[in-house]
Every structure is written in structure tokens, then in C-alpha cells.
């Protein structure tokens, strides 16, 4: 019986590992290519996963082609600003929608819910016209300001506020706190885990965004990593798979590091969100 379950467990692990290797194979292949020197052929039979003479030359080249330091800084500026704006606007909006009763609440809720489904791709033309009219084309603020609020964030935080026990704000009121103070001093600290989860999920989302920054930002010096990678893949190096692979790894690295540090938040946070929806 005991033996049987060991065999059983072994088979299960083997299945999970084999499928995982297959799923991640494209990624492994990218890493392998990024370390291959010019002298090594990429297209061989059988394909070679471990380079014969691994080199970091491709990374050095990609690093300077992407203007890595500057564009990483640009990515951070845009991403962190958009995340910060979301925490501010979404929490302010979610709070009355979950903790207060007032005329028009349900209508506002449904309108926001409907906007869940409208992606930036569908409104990109008037959005660009608007940013152009505000004179924000080719500026950081033109990129992150329209990203500053999301229906997803409002709903995630609304769920968090709904879970807070009701008598807490009463206690605050009895103590003579203003409504804003109750929100700021009592409620926000209580939903810190949800604020963190939202920040982490949005960080990766905005880090990976490329269409909107690509349209707004013309100057190379203020473009984020993803846009620089798009340019690289369409320019002279579009078929230089070694350099392109190295560049792709460099661009992904911050998001993957971030993911591994906060992976608990991703899986369990997203699962909680899905449950409550």
C-alpha cells in the first residue's frame, strides 16, 4: 500500500514536470540562444539547448542597443506612477461604493462594471486625440495619466472594503473622526494586503504595456523597455536572433524577479479575487 502510493506520487510528479518543461520550452530556447556566440549555428539538427561556448557578448550588445539604464528608468517612472495613481483613485472610488448608501450608487457601480470590458485598443484613437489636445504627447505624464484608474482596481478594493467589519467606522465616528480621517486612518490600513496585491498585479501589467507608450512617446530617450524592444525587433537587428533573445531576456528579467519575490501575492491574491467576483 505504502509502496503503491510512492509510485503513484512519482508518476504524478513526473507528469507535472514533463508538461512544465514542454510549456516553458520556448523560454528555455530563448535563454539558450541568448548565450550562443556568432560562431555557433542556431539552426542545427538536433537543436542544441546548451551552447558550446557560451558568451555574454549578445547581452553587452543588447544592453547598449536598448540603452538599458535609461529605458529601465523610463519603465520604472511610467509603471510606478501609474500604480500610485491607481492606488489613490481606486481606493477613493471603491470606498463609498462599498461602505456607504447613497442615491445612484448601483448605477455608478454598473457603469464601472461595464467599463471592465473596454480595452485601451478600442478607444486608442480618441484617447490619443485627447492627449494630443492636452499637449501631453511625448511626455511621461501623457502615458501614465490615462492608465491611472482601472475598473479592475476599483472592484478588487471594493471587495476588500466589503470584508471589513461594520462597527469599526462607527467607533471612529463616536471618537469624532471626520469621514476622510476614518477612510485614511482606519479603513486604508485594514485593507493593506489588498492594496499590495493590486499594486503587484498592476506593476507587471504596466511594465509589460507597449501599445499605448509606443503611440504617445516619440523620443527614444523617454521610451520604456518594451517599446525599445519593439523598435529593435523591427529594425536592423530584427533577424539577429542572438541579440534579440538577449534583449528579450533583459526586458523580462525585472518582471520575473518581481514575480518570484511576490509570487505568493500573484497566485493566492488572484485566486481570492476570482472567488469574490
Amino acid at each position, binding site marked *: 500500500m505504502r509502496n503503491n502510493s510512492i509510485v503513484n*506520487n512519482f508518476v504524478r*510528479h513526473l*507528469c507535472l514536470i514533463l508538461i*512544465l518543461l514542454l*510549456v516553458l*520550452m*520556448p*523560454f528555455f*530556447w*530563448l535563454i539558450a*540562444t541568448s548565450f550562443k556566440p556568432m560562431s555557433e549555428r542556431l*539552426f542545427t*539538427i*538536433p*537543436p542544441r539547448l546548451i551552447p558550446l561556448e557560451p558568451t555574454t557578448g549578445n547581452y553587452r550588445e543588447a544592453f547598449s542597443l536598448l540603452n538599458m539604464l535609461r529605458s529601465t528608468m523610463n519603465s520604472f517612472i511610467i509603471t510606478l506612477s501609474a500604480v500610485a495613481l491607481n492606488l*489613490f*483613485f*481606486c481606493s477613493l*472610488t471603491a470606498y*463609498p*461604493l462599498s461602505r*456607504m448608501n*447613497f442615491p445612484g450608487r448601483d448605477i455608478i457601480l454598473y457603469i464601472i462594471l*461595464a*467599463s*471592465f*470590458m*473596454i*480595452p485601451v*485598443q*478600442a*478607444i*486608442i*484613437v*480618441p484617447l*490619443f*486625440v*485627447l492627449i494630443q489636445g492636452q499637449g501631453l504627447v511625448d511626455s511621461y505624464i501623457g502615458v501614465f495619466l490615462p492608465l491611472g*484608474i482601472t475598473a479592475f482596481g*476599483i472592484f478588487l478594493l471594493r471587495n476588500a472594503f466589503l470584508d471589513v467589519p461594520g462597527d469599526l467606522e462607527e467607533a471612529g465616528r463616536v471618537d469624532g473622526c471626520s469621514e476622510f480621517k476614518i477612510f485614511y486612518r482606519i479603513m486604508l490600513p485594514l485593507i493593506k494586503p489588498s492594496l499590495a496585491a493590486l499594486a503587484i498585479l498592476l506593476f507587471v501589467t504596466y*511594465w*509589460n*504595456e*507597449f501599445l499605448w507608450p509606443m*503611440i504617445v512617446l516619440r523620443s527614444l530617450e523617454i521610451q520604456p523597455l518594451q517599446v525599445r*524592444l519593439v523598435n529593435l*525587433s523591427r529594425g536592423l537587428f530584427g533577424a539577429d536572433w542572438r541579440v*534579440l533573445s538577449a534583449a*528579450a531576456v533583459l*526586458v*523580462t528579467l525585472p*518582471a*520575473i524577479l518581481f514575480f518570484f519575490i511576490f*509570487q505568493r501575492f500573484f*497566485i493566492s491574491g488572484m*485566486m*481570492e479575487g*476570482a*472567488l469574490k*467576483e
Partner: protein
Amino acid sequence: MRNYKFYKYKKFLTPYLFLLPGLIMLSLYFFWPIINTFRLVFYRYTILSPPQFTGMANINRLISDAHYWNALKNTVVYSLIVVPSLIVIPLIFAGLLNQKLKFIQLYRVGYYLPRVMSLVVVGVIWKYIYQSDGLINMVLKILGLSPIGWLSDPSLALVSVSIVTIWVATPYYMIIYLAGLQTIPKTLIEAAKIDGAGYFQQVWHVILPLLKHCILTVTLVSTVNAMRVFGEVYIITEGGPGGATDVLTHYIYRTAFSRMQMGYASVIAATLLLLLLIISIMYIKLFTGREKRA
């Protein structure tokens, strides 16, 4: 007395004051662009000169525009490939990852990894793999099969793009299913086992009915996401070969930002918005129905 009135007035206003900043943001960067899309439908607008009213000209042009109908057809065909795949494959993965095993959390992290990469990176990876002498065709050659023109064959290119989407989106829907699976009480499955139900009977008669809401959510969300696909197409095929993978968003992008025809791009966007609105109304109906029951 005046004080009391003031207090009541303030109490009435409080929720709206909280909502104000967020609603301004949403109106400016969300609702106004939506309205403006439908307004620009009737204008000729090149950004360089002010919009010029042209009445129904854009709409007439749309009706006889073969490129538009091709893009719409491709969007629908792509959705028909991607949506059913994303209903089934993530469910299987979620089942695999819902086992009680050592290191299961580690496996979950691994299976989630494709989702962390940007569509630009994903596009670069798959464009490389799909090359005529790329990784997949190398493997095919080793197996003694003839290589396939993943991106050069017009009848296949859209399928190739769909595979990329399925690869990168599976982790997302897998998590939704995993959350659903974990709400199913173990006792229900035990009861089914005692009643002599085999594995597939358990899945079909116990697990799937309990996941009904999850499956509906995945269906709607994946449909909306399929309608708005852009990154994979833009990076891997640019709509080619010969328009075989041109989708609505890509056609909007080309019309607006390569040809600078903002008005005409708005007509195309308006049809996409209408499609999305219909789907989101369905979603609200589902959502509210559920909330009432809960």
C-alpha cells in the same frame, strides 16, 4: 438648528466627494473617448488639420471596404479557435495543479510563468520558434516529418498566432479555475466515490456542474480578450501574409497611426466597441444574476 442642517448636507455630500476624483478620471480617459469614437465616425480627421464633417462617408466606405471585412472575419475565426481552447486547456492544467502533492506551490509558480512575460517578448520568442528553420520545424525534421510554413502559409498563420495566445493566456484562466476547484468541498467528491463513481463520472457529474460559474466567466472574459487581440499579431506577423492575420485592432492601428485617418479608424473602432458592449452587457447580466443568488 443651522448646524444640524449643515451636518445633514455634509453627510449627503460625503460619498460624492469621495467619488469625484475617480469619476473625473474615468470620464476624461474612458467615457469621453468612448463618446468621441462615435462622434468622430462622421468626420474626416488627420490630426494635422481640424476635423471636417463628412456625414456618412466613413460608414459608406466601411461597408465596401474588403480590408475591414477581412479583419472582422479574422477576428471572429481567431476567437473561435482561441476561446474553446482557453475554456478547456486551463481547466485541465488547473486539475493537474489542484492535487495534494509536495511542492505543488512551486509547480503553480512555474505554470504561471508565461503570463509574466510581455506580449513583445512572447512575440519575439514565438516568431523565432516559428521560423522556417526554427525550433518547431527542427523537431518535425527529427521526427521525419516535413517542415511547416507556420508564418508563411496564409491558411495556417492565424492558427499559429492563436497558439501563441493560448500559450500566454492559459495561466490566467488556470488560476480562475483553480480558485473554483478549491471551493468544491472534499466531502462531495468522497460521497461520489462511495456511490461508486469513476474518475470521469466524478468530473462530469460533480466537478463540472459546480464549476459552471467559473466556466461562464472564462468564456466571457476570453471572448472579450480575443476580440481585442493586438500584441501577438503586431509583433509576429504584422497582419501578414497577405492580410491573413489582420485583425480589427491591428487595422485600427494601421489606419489611425500609419495612414493618419483618425475618422475612418473611429468607424472601425465603433464597430469593435459595439461588439464589446454587447458582450459586457451579457457579463453584467451574469454578474448581477449571481449576486442576487448569493
